[in-house]
Every structure is written in C-alpha cells, then in structure tokens.
C-alpha cells in the first residue's frame, strides 16, 4: 500500500506574491504583465474570481468587473525561489518528489510509516510546516496513488488535508463530474460525454468496455482504469537535461526588429557568461518567442562547433530570431536555451583564425568586469537598441 501526497498551492503566483507583500492578503488580486491595456490575467485570487475575474481575461475587463482589483506583475524568479524553498521542506520527508506544474507537487511517503507516522498525519504536518515556514497555503490530498491524491487535493477548498481511505478510491471518485478525471478536457470530450448522458465518473466506470472504446478509442482501457481510481504510475523525480537557459521579459511588448535583437543580445551575453563560468560551450540553441497574444514560436539550430563566446552565440541566435519571429504581433518575452553542453572548441584549431585572440581578450575583460560589478555594468551597443522615436 502506497502513501502518495499531492500538494497543491492554489493560485500559486498569487500566493507567492502575497508572501512577498503581505498587504495583498485578503484582497482581490491578479497577476498580470505590464503594458496596461493589453495585458491578460495570468492568475487570479479567490476573491477576484468571486467577482467574475477569470484567468486569461484582459486586465482592462477584469478591472471593470472588479474596480478594487489589485494587480501585481509576474515574477518568475520569485516563483522559482518559492519552488526551491518548497522542495527544501519536502526533502525532509521523502526523496521521491515530482513537480507536476508550478504550485503542484507529488510526494511519495510509502514505507516511511515508522519514521513519519501515518500518511495523513505526515501530510498534515507538512501542510502546517509549509504554512508556518513559507506562509503558503496548501491543499493536500493523500491517497493510494497519484491520480486519486490529485483529485482528493481538488476536493479541499481551504488549506487542509483530504485523505482517501485505502480501498475506497473507486467509491470516492464515483460521484465526481467526469471532467475531474485528467485527460478529459472541458471542451471536447467533456461535451461529448455530456451529450452521451455520462455525467459522473461512476457512470464511466460501470460502462461496458466496448462502449467505452467507442468514445475513447485506444485510450479506453486507460480511462476505465482511471475511472476506477487505479493509477500505477510511480512518483518520478524529474530528470533534467543539462542546459543553460535565460529568459527575458521585454520592458514593453515590441515588434521592432532592433529592439528584439537588443534583448536577444543581452540574453546571449547572460547565457555566454554562465557557460564560460562552467567552462562549457553549446552545440544546440533553442529560442522560444512568446507573443503578446499567447502564441509562441520555437526554433532550434545546431551549431557547427561547440561555442561559448558572445559573438558566435549572438550570430546564431539572431538567425534563429529571424526564423522564429515571423508574425507581426508584438513579442512579450524571449527564452534562449543552450543545450548539448560540452568543452568549448574541442577539436582542431583553425589555422587562420587570427582575430579570435582579440575577441577572446575582449571577452575576458568583459567577463572580469561583469563578474565584479554585475551584468549591466557594460553593454554592447546592440543591446541598448530602443524603438525608433520617429514612430509617430
């Protein structure tokens, strides 16, 4: 018998923002990017949702629904810090943890009964500890498997623990609406199921296998298994590729080529700086362009040799940007990831690469300065590009 915990921090960005600024507690609050008129709500607090604000709504509209709305900017680095702080606490409980998405984690306590006591007690302790140390609320589900634990966490509407009696998983989830099951979206299959008069998970579970196949095709056995509360998947710690990645949110969304190239230049410099610190270079670049309307484009390129100097990185990245950025809609942020890390310039040296020495010296000098005084102490001209003022 397993003890799997699902730990869910509701409205994660909102909760984190409230830790950073306690004055925001208890008031309707949304997280939305800068740029006033065209920003979309990325996360909304309970109080805001009660006023009709939803995630994905235009900020202007949200303000109209809820005039006393407070708005805070998305702060990815705060979220990252919060996540690592969470993991620090979790590490005291179990080495088996799995992040699902920001603000949602699985923890496997199986076999630690002697050490931690029953799963539900450990979960309650964990919830209190997180509340006390990090001031973050937690909705916690404890169950035999990940699926039911997640569903159980969804059944608590204020910080606390929901423990599902082992062996009663199927009965526990039976009365819940079908959309609760992961893999059944509200939009498409949810609608079909409603039309077929399948409203709760129990009806799905009792359905004949052949009938279920009609609806879900090859996925039918999986759905049936899930509908019966069975989920054999283990809690698997994340396996990460070694990569160096940097993301930049533009000061204001922009579609001017020079400004985007400037932002990209700063990104490559930051990546290059970190690569050189590690003494490594990259052979593979991945650039993701996030547009203002939520659409994003990814392009990758493979480099001929393993590099880590700013100039080579920037040249390759600029080509990527031209390929990735073909729409007219403004760009909100850029993310550059360097993969396939390796020792730089491994291989034979180029006989005629005379200017390289000068570049390398310059690079060293820059790194030295930046190492002491920060990245912004010295900048390339290209990185400072502004939108031409002639634009009206």
């Amino acid at each position: 018998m397993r003890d799997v915990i699902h730990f869910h921090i509701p409205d994660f960005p909102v909760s984190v923002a409230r830790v950073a600024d306690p004055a925001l507690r208890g008031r309707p609050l949304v997280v939305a990017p800068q740029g006033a008129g065209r920003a979309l709500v990325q996360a909304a607090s309970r109080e805001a949702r009660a006023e009709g604000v939803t995630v994905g709504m235009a900020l202007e509209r949200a303000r109209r629904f809820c005039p006393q709305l407070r708005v805070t900017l998305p702060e990815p680095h705060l979220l990252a810090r919060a996540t690592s702080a969470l993991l620090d606490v979790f590490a005291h409980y179990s080495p088996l943890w799995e992040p699902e998405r920001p603000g949602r984690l699985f923890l496997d306590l199986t076999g630690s009964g002697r050490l931690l006591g029953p799963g539900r007690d450990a979960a309650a302790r964990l919830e209190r500890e997180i509340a006390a140390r990090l001031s973050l609320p937690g909705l916690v589900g404890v169950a035999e498997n990940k699926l039911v634990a997640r569903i159980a966490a969804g059944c608590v509407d204020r910080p606390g623990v929901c423990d599902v009696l082992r062996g009663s998983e199927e009965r526990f989830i039976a009365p819940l609406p079908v959309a609760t099951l992961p893999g059944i979206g509200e939009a498409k299959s949810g609608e079909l199921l409603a039309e077929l008069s399948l409203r709760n998970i129990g009806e799905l579970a009792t359905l004949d296998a052949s009938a279920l196949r009609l609806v879900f095709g090859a996925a039918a056995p999986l759905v049936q298994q899930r509908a019966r509360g069975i989920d054999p998947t283990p809690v698997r710690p994340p396996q990460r590729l070694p990569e160096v990645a940097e993301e930049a949110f533009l000061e204001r969304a922009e579609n001017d080529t020079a400004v985007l190239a400037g932002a990209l230049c700063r990104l490559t410099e930051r990546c290059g700086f970190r690569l050189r610190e590690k003494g490594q270079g990259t052979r593979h670049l991945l650039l993701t362009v996030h547009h203002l309307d939520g659409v994003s484009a990814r392009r990758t390129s493979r480099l001929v040799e393993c590099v880590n100097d700013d100039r080579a990185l920037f040249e390759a990245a600029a080509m990527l940007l031209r390929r990735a950025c073909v729409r007219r809609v403004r760009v909100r942020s850029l993310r550059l990831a360097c993969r396939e890390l390796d020792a730089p310039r491994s291989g034979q040296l180029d006989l005629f690469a005379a200017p390289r020495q000068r570049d390398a010296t310059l690079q060293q000098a820059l790194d030295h300065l930046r190492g002491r005084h920060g990245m912004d102490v010295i900048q390339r001209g290209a990185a400072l590009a502004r939108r031409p003022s002639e634009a009206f």
Partner: protein
Amino acid sequence: MSFTHLHIHSAFSPGWGIHSPEALCAAAKAMGNTHLALTDRNGLYGIPHFLSCAREAGVRPIIGAEALSGANRAVLLARDEDGYANLCRLLSELHCRGGFQLTEALRTYRRGLIILSDDAAVLTPLARDERNDLFVELSPGHNLHAALALARRLRLPPAATSRAVLLKTEDHLQHRVLRAIHLNSTLSRLEAQQICGEEDLLRSAPQMASFFPHCPEALENTQRIAALCTCDWDFSRIIFPAFRGLNRDEAFAELDRRARLGARRRFGAIDARIEARLSKELALIRSKGFADYFLVVEELAARSPRTCGRGSAAASLVAYCLGITHVDPLRHNLFFERFLNEGRLDPPDIDIDFPWDERDAVLDFAFARYGAQRAAMVANQVGFKGRASLREVAKVLGIPAAEIKQVTERISGYWKADQTASAIESHPLFAGAPLEGDWPQIIAIARKLTGQLRHLSLHCGGLVIVPDEIRRYVPVEVSAKGLPMIQWEKDQAEAAGLVKIDILGNRSLAVIRDALAAVALNRGREIDYAAWRPLDDARACALLRAGRTMGCFYIESPATRQLLCRMWGEQEPDSQARSCDLFEHLVMASSIIRPAANRFIREFVARMRGAPWRSLHPLLDEVLAETYGLAVYQEQITQMAMALAGFTPFEGDQLRKVISKKHKEKKLADYRRMFFAGGAGKGVPEQILEQCWSQILSFAGYSFCKPHSASYALVSCKSAWLKANYPAEFMAAVISNQGGYYTPFAYLSECRRMGLKVLPPEINASAACYTGAGNGVRVGLMQIRELSRQGLVRLLRERERAPFASFGDFLRRVDPEAADARQLVKAGCFDTLEGKKCRPRLLWELLAHTRRFATGESGQLFAAEREDALLPKPPPYDEATVLRQELATLGFLVSCHPLALWRRRIAALGAVPAERLGAWTGRYITLVGWWVTGKTVPTRLGEPMEFVSFEDTSAIFEATFFPRAYARFCRMLSRRRPYVLKGKVESEFGVPTLTVEWVGFLDVQEGSGDAG
C-alpha cells in the same frame, strides 16, 4: 531651367501612393508646373478623376502608368489616343495573362507610347527595334550614375524624373505604414527596395536642376516629352453598347417596333395620350442615340419573368412597354425629365433587380452574348474605412487581434477614418474606457489613411458593354470570381462615358417567386404575374394600412411600419386617411423616410390626416400638390428650383445630383447663390427661399425619386398580398431567402404573432429551406449550424426514395459524417421518430456506427442487433440541456419564446404586455423585452441616440433611447438577453412608443429564471 514631372504616384497606386490627385495637382501648380503626368503603378485607376482635378487646378494632364512586372520596369506615357488604347491593352495583359513579359508586350503595343526606363533588359531590345520615343529615366536616389552610363552606352536620350510619392519628407512614415499593411509586414522589417526613398518628393524645377548639373539635357527632354503628349483629353463622349450589330437607324426602328408592340400588350390599345408620350420619348431617344442601350437592357431583363426595373428609368413609358419596368408612368404621373432630358449630358442609367439567385445566370448570359472582349464588370475601389484603417495600422504595430477587436467593435463600419478619430474622443461608447498605450498614435496615423486604394473588388452588378473592344477604353483585370473587371468604379466609369447597366440581386423577388411556387404546390392556385393587381385585395390593403409589414419588401423597417401605422391609424379608423389612394401614399411613405427628413415626417402625417396646409409659395403649388406641399421625391428638387428660381431643367438636374453626391460643398455654394438670386428675381421673399433650401438639403445622403419608389412599392404590395393571403408560404420564403431586415428568430416570432405554428426541424418533414403550409412554418435544415452542404444533399437525395423509418435506417442509408448526424440529433430532427428522451441513446448508436466504419468492420446482417444490445441505456437529458442544445444547433429557441422561460419572474415584476402599450399612454411602466433590431442616429446636435425594437411574447414594440439614456445604457444593449425596461409611454397619431429611462436584465436578479 524648366522641368515637367513625368513620374508621379498618387493614392491610386495600390499599396504605394499616399496623396490624392487633387493634392498632387495643387502642389504641382503651386510649384509653377504647367504639365503633370500621373503614372500610377500598373493601372489607370484614377485617370478620369485626375483629368478633372488637373482641369480644376489648371495644369495640363499627361496620362501614363508605371508598368512593373517581375524584375522589369518602365514608365509609359500616352502620346495620343492610339497610345492610350495601347496602354490600356498592355496593362490589361499585365493583369490578365499568366507569363506576361513586359519587354515582349512593349514590342507589341509600342505605338503611341513614350517609354522611360532605367532597366537595360527593357531598353536594349526596344532600342534595337526603334529609337524614337525611348528615354533613359534618371532619378535622384535611384542609381543615377548607372542610369546615365546606360544612356551613354545605348546612346539614348536621358529624361529626369523624381518618382514622386511624397509631398514632404514627413510623409515617408505614412508610406511605410501603407507598405507594411500591403506586404503584411512591420515597419522595422521593411527593406529598402520595398519602399520608396525618403527623397522621392515632388520637387520644384530648380531643386531638380540642382541634381543634374552634369546633364542638363535630362531636364530639357522632359519638356520635349510633355510637348509630344496630348493633354486635351476628352472622355465625355458616351460609349453605347451595340445591339446585335445593327446600325443606328436599324436599332431605332427595332426599338420603335418593340415599344409599340409592348404598348398594345400593356394597354390593349394606343390612345392619343399614350401615343403623345411614346412619340415624345422615342424622339428624344433617337436624337440622343440611346436606342441600342434600351434594346440591350430589354434583352437582359427578359431573362427572368420577375424583375424590377428601378431608378429613374421607371418614369419612361418606353421602358414600361418593353417590360423593363412594371409601373405605369402615365397612371402614376412619373416625371420623365428626371430620366432623360434634352440638356442631360451623362448617360441614362437603368438598374434592374433580379431574384438574387438568378443574377449570376443573367451575367453569364451577358458575357456569353457580348464576350469578354466587349463586356466587363465595374469595379469597387476598396480603400480604408474607419474600422479597417485602425485595424490595419494596429496590426502593423503588432497589437494582438483581441485587443484590436475590443476597440474596433465599438466603431461603425460606415465611419471614415477621420470620423472615427473624433468619435473615439467624444462618443459615449468610448466613455469610461479611454484608449491608452499606443492607441492615440495608431489613431493619428489611421486618420491619414482615407483615400488610398488597396485593391479592386467586383461591383455587385454594374456591367459595361462597348460596341468594339473594352480594352481600348480602360484596363481590365480579372476578379476573384473570374469575371473581367475594369479598373474604375462606377463614378469614374461614368465620367469616362462608359454606360453602366446595373444588374442587381434582390432577395424579395426570390421571396415572391418561392412563395408563389409554394402556393401553387400547396393550394393549386396559379397567379399570373404580369396581370397581378395586389391592391385589389382588401386583406392586403388592411395589412399595409396597419403597418403589419414585417417581411414585406422595402417597408418592413420599424420606422416605415410606424409611419404606416401613423398614416392610417391602427386604433381609430379615420375617414380622411381611408379615402387616400393607398398606392400613391405608399410611394410617398417609402420616399420620405430618409436620414435628414425626420422633422418633415410628422408634418406629412398631420397634413395627410386632415391638417390644413399651404405650400411655401404659390409658385410651388403645382409642383408639390401631390405631396401635401412637402418635398418628398428627389426630382422635386429639380422642379422646385425650376418653379421658384427659374432654373433650366438641366441646371435643376445638376443641383439634384450635387445634393446627392458626397463631396459637394463648393459646387453647392454656387447653386445656393444661383437659387437665391433666381428666387429674388421672381420676387420670392428670402425667408421662404431659406425654408425651401433647407427642404432641398434634406435630400442629402440617400433619397429616392418617385419612379424608383413606385417600382419598389409595387413589389412591396405584392409581398403584402402574399403575406395577407398565404402567410405560411410567404414567411417561410422570407426566412429561406435570408438577408431580410430582421433575424430569422424575429421572423419566427412574427409568425407566432400571426397565429402560425412554428414547427421544429424534422428529418422527414423539413426541406433544406423553411417551408410553410396551412398554418404552420417548418424550420428548414438550413438552420442547423455546422451541417455540411454535402451531408444535406445526400440526406435529401436518399429521402426522396423513401422517408426514413428510424435513426438506424437513416445511418445505414445515408452514412452521414458523424458531426452532421450529431447536429441533426441535437437539433431534435429525430424526436418524432424516436422520441425526445432517446437523444443520448441515438448518439451512442451514432458512435457505434461511425466506429464500425472507421475500423472497417463490415455491417453484417445481424451485427447491428448484437451491438445495440451492448450499448448503454443512458437517462434522457434534463429540460435545460434540451434547450441549450436547441440554442447551440439552431442559434435560437424554436420550441418556445425565450421570454417564456422567465414567465414567473415577469409576472412578479408586474410587467405590462406590449400589446397593451397604447392603453398606458403618458404613464410610466415596466416592460420586458427581447432585443429585435436597433438603429443609432445622431440628434440635431450630433449626440447619438438609438431606436430599438423589442418584443415580448405578445407584440413587438419600439423603444427610444434619447441621448442621456443612450449614453448610460448603450453598452448594455448587447442582444440575446432578456431586458427589463422602464420608461414613459408616448403616443403619436395613436402609435405608442416607449421612452426608456432605465434598463436592467431579467436574468441577473436573484432566482434566475424558471428554467434555471
């Protein structure tokens, strides 16, 4: 040093030029130019307009174009008529022929053209053929030295041009925005060769000279070229089509014969009065040479038994006799001079309406008869309107679509760019949500995008036929539909003497056709269309007088229905009003409803109902006698000006035209002076003249002449007759043909009010379109959303063999797309066969059916039974789900009125039923309403207000939102919700309306409805 501009782009260069020909001509004149060439890109899109601008500005116009094809480029200037024809032919080929080669084409069409180019690939082979009229183009900022070297090498004379697009350097941004729009790009991505240079300015001669100290002959050559080109272009000659190769006399003889034949058919015999009018018209037609034109139009009109010749042509007895129009001009006293008069210089204009779905066949016939060589369609020149310019500029700046929509959906599609800008500053729709960020800048740029040509589109029905070759007169392109289309829109085509025949689609003619067919089928009653006199029927007359005309052609708008009610008074029958001639008054009613005439309408109704009146001046007595001393018809402008101020018929007609045109301020001032001077000459007091003039001005915007209104009124009467006698067939035809004034839902509500039963779609009973029989209207399968066209065709074909016995039978025989069958089930098409409770089960069956086909299992004889046994037996939907599905599949509720769902709440509110509105005149009441249609109008002070029609389950009623109420509630009027309205009932001539003072929603208060 003198210099002539030979390479200039105006706003008629699609996606390139920014300044209007007026602005360019004025600027050139101010710089002291005597000549100016307009060379728009790949077209003569603005030439007729340019000629008149140049004449006004006092510069001599040179016609040309810049031809750009692949990598080749040349500026072509027409030396003479011949050159002009060749230019048109060459540009037509450029647009119409695949694999067009500029150099090749120039070798074919070189005669009469002067060619300027800096492209060696063009110049070298041409120079080999013939060196005359060939120049190397030297332009500052465009590889000047390479071009000069080319000139030396080929030993061709150089000619200086500025390739002007801009008037000042600041215009460059506007050009770049336009280019970015055209190329679907952004400002920063535009490359240098995709835009004009910042220096491509209209420069003065000394400025140009400063670029050519080393080559003064380049400047002198421009003068030489200008001297070679004709500048006295005359486009005023009218080009008539030729009928079957007859010469002028033969054509007239044929017309004379057919007109007299027709007169005998129409009238039985030709009496003296008819003879007099006929010979007067024929004589005029002969002297003007219009006989061919009449014959061509007659031939086209004869393609359909149900047409409606409209416009001023209905005043012509000849047109009536030929069957082009259907209203007797003698009986209804229609003013022939409005159509043709001795002084009129422009071509006559005959418009014919055909049933909308027969129009394409008529055009096909015309092209088959005259060929693409002689016939082409008129174009629309698509530019920027308020909404489009904002949207496009915002896109260039990278604003996401959702945000653009938020702003533009508040803007009327009819506003121009500058109107939009001022509306955003003051209109209440924008109040409380000011535009921020980049929007002020976007508006500033969009404001300047008004006259620029973006592309051509097909005019809906304008057809031009010439006797010889259309490509001699104007360049021709191919429309998206594949029809040849000239580069000019209707006004320029008219200015260039091309006679347009308008072949228009009219939905109501199709409604009448379909309703008559249904009547013949259901009741076995055939109606002879030609001899049909709808107003002989008492029921039709009663319906018209009561304003119950929803669905009737042309008189169904709320404003017209209310006017009809006021005229004949639904509440109190009125002997004075009863005695009036219904047809005549119908014609007046449909003419007086025009934007600027609201204040005359009340006066008109009062006079008609017996108020004493006198016309403004005794001189007007005769002119305005039939319309109670008020100007109602467009031609009364002409007549008033003639009677009061001594205008000639020609001058009066010009005045009428000026009033109805858009850009008129300057000319109008001249006519005003003339009118007042003429009036004073006849001793008419100034105050009276002032009043007359304000009546004349009320015709601005759109207004109608009596012949046109009479033609339309006849169709209205036929609609009314059908509605009164065969309501089910008629209403079904109205909804099926779509495009009426109201939504299908509003028409179905009208059906209910008329006592017809609205029947839901049914798999065996519904046709593709709506069908009416007895006292029921059956919703057609066309109403089911997302039902595929092929699916529908297959279903109907299979059903013809035998009706479907069950859902299983349907699946087996039709094998529909899963999505189609799903929609049919959800729309309730199988409720009668299988029962409403079975819908979820049917969807299971459908799933089993599609899965079997998808996996390739064969449908075995006993397989179906076995599988059915395994399918689950789901519970039926609850009532709310059924309604939701109905709404989702049909777009509205058919089983009941949406307000019926709130019955209990409505009762609790104590709302007054709308049919009892009249009993509450002068009091404050509460009503509930469902939005039907609305119309926003500006008050005399320019504030917006809105007239909205609502309906409850008992009647449709009109509500007025005066500016204060409008400003407060306009953003709530978003349809599709049940409203609670509070306000005061006002009544005029017995017709009540609600003046709204408060608006709320029925569905937001606690206990949200009985249906949940």
